[in-house]
């Protein structure tokens, strides 16, 4: 649980944001200069709100009314800074150890070896930060924050300078961390893929104000926020259950009220809850169920609404057994198909367009 209600002026810029986020990962998403870093600096105790209140898991960190302002070190947080801030006088190993060594052994919840191997920084341990590459520094900074076994983790674009391969290794690790130890994470990112993969709650910030906050599913399914979340990113997020596992083809079948979806194999027991993001532009619509098609997911659906966006794009909202499923087609296709609310159609979704990053195994947090 994270309760934030803060206001602060800095120069011409004023920030005034209030929200409550559940445990798990809260993503802060917003344009450059919208105030994301300023906000988490206040949570960390590095800058002082002009007024407000910050509560993490019932513990009040800051309250301008009672005058309470815990210093950063009493907040037990891990902060991965936008500019890494490694200690130049310490080796990589000592940087990593910095937060751990002061902790009683009983409170150390993350092991050095594990972090080092996930981050792939074993060969750097005896180096000093100065000679490291940009991405190497960033990885060490992530490790340092994790190893402090924090009660809340603040991450400011931690993966921005990492390559795709490293990113896809780190994302599940960070997600797992939050779940395993029940650490709330506030995660600043520009990448929808990361947000989808990690976040439970999405907070959209613009020009120092909170535009919307809510479950990732809701916000990303709503075209209203598309200008903020990124135009090409409109889509639906479905909550599904892992129903079967076709080992032969490494395919997992997910069931949701609208039918079943086949996606790349998820190594979780059947019955696990799963979140699937389906990009609207990946959903094709067929008037008749097609045959002889490589497309695995063919879902019967009813057209609920047809919204032309412009001369090029048209958004179609389908109803798959009660779940909204957005499809984005060209206006030209719509002129040919003449879709109307109430029509029965088939939604086509290639299994492979549901990238691994779009399927989040959430069995650790949601009760099975």
């Amino acid at each position: 649980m994270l309760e934030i209600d803060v206001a602060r002026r800095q120069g011409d810029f004023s920030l005034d944001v209030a929200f409550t986020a559940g445990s798990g990962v809260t993503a802060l998403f917003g344009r450059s200069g919208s105030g994301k870093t300023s906000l988490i600096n206040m949570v960390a105790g590095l800058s002082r709100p002009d007024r407000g209140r910050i509560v993490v898991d019932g513990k009040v960190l800051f309250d301008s009314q009672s005058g309470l302002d815990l210093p950063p070190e009493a907040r037990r947080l891990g902060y991965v800074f936008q500019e890494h801030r490694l200690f130049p006088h310490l080796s990589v190993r000592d940087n990593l150890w910095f937060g751990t060594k002061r902790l009683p052994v009983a409170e150390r919840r993350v092991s050095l070896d594990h972090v080092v191997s996930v981050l792939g920084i074993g060969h750097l341990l005896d180096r000093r930060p100065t000679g490291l590459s940009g991405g190497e520094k960033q990885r060490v900074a992530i490790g340092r924050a994790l190893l402090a076994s924090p009660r809340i983790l603040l991450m400011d674009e931690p993966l921005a300078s990492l390559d795709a391969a490293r990113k896809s290794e780190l994302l599940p690790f960070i997600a797992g961390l939050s779940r395993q130890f029940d650490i709330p994470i506030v995660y600043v990112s520009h990448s929808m893929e990361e947000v989808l993969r990690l976040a439970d709650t999405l907070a959209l910030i613009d020009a120092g104000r909170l535009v919307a906050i809510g479950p990732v599913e809701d916000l990303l399914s709503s075209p209203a926020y598309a200008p903020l979340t990124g135009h090409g990113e409109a889509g639906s997020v479905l909550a599904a259950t892992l129903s079967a596992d076709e080992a032969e083809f490494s395919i997992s079948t997910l069931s949701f009220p609208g039918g079943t979806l086949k996606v790349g194999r998820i190594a979780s027991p059947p019955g696990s809850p799963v979140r699937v993001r389906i990009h609207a532009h990946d959903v094709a619509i067929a008037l008749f169920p097609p045959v002889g098609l490589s497309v695995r997911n063919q879902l019967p659906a009813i057209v609920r609404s047809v919204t032309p966006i412009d001369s090029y794009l048209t958004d179609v909202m389908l109803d798959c057994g009660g779940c909204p499923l957005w499809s984005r087609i060209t206006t030209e296709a719509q002129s040919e198909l003449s879709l109307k609310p109430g029509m029965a159609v088939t939604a086509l979704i290639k299994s492979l367009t549901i990238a691994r990053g779009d399927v989040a195994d959430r069995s650790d947090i949601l009760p099975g």
Partner: protein
Amino acid sequence: MSLWFTLTPLEREALSLSLLVSGWAVVGSLPFGILAAWVLARRDFPGKSLFDGLIHLPLVLPPVVVGYALLVLFGRKGIIGGWLYDWFGITLAFTWKGAAIASAVVAFPLMVRAIRMALEGVDRGLEQAARTLGCGPIRTFFSVTMPLAMPGVLAGVILAFARSLSEFGATITFVSNIPGETRTLPIALYALTQVPGTDDAALRLCIISVVVAFAALLASEILARRMRARMEG
């Protein structure tokens, strides 16, 4: 070592006394120097300029004046000196301890300024990082700020040591020129310059001072270089 034995007893006495006095002057004032530098670099309070000015005082006043001031304060009849004597039986005036204090006071502004500059150069972002990692302000100071400011602290120490080695005016005024107790290199040198025909002996003392200072300087440079190299390794 062989150098040592080519020295006259007077030279040996003055040299070891100088090392003792300068060493203690630096070591003893270092904690206060660090504290004062930190206050000046990181705190803001009314009267800060006054405090800064007070610290610079020994630099601004001729050493002889500083010596008189010390005599008045720390002499056995002085405000602080009398109290020290009455309560702890400590006498500073006319002892090597007093010489160390005179040196320390005169060198203090140099030490503080160097350390202060070093502290001001330390990236606050790194201190913030340490705070978020669970270090209180004091721990942060010792585990991040100080190590990063170390080259500057070293510079302050070496400046103070060099200044101590040459300290004469305040010392002779405060603790006089007492062989084996307060007759350090510069005071012995002064004594020599006050009587005719001692140019050679004076030159020897000069050379001894210079050699000691060069050695200290060299050591500090090597240390500083090693520290910098470690940060780049």
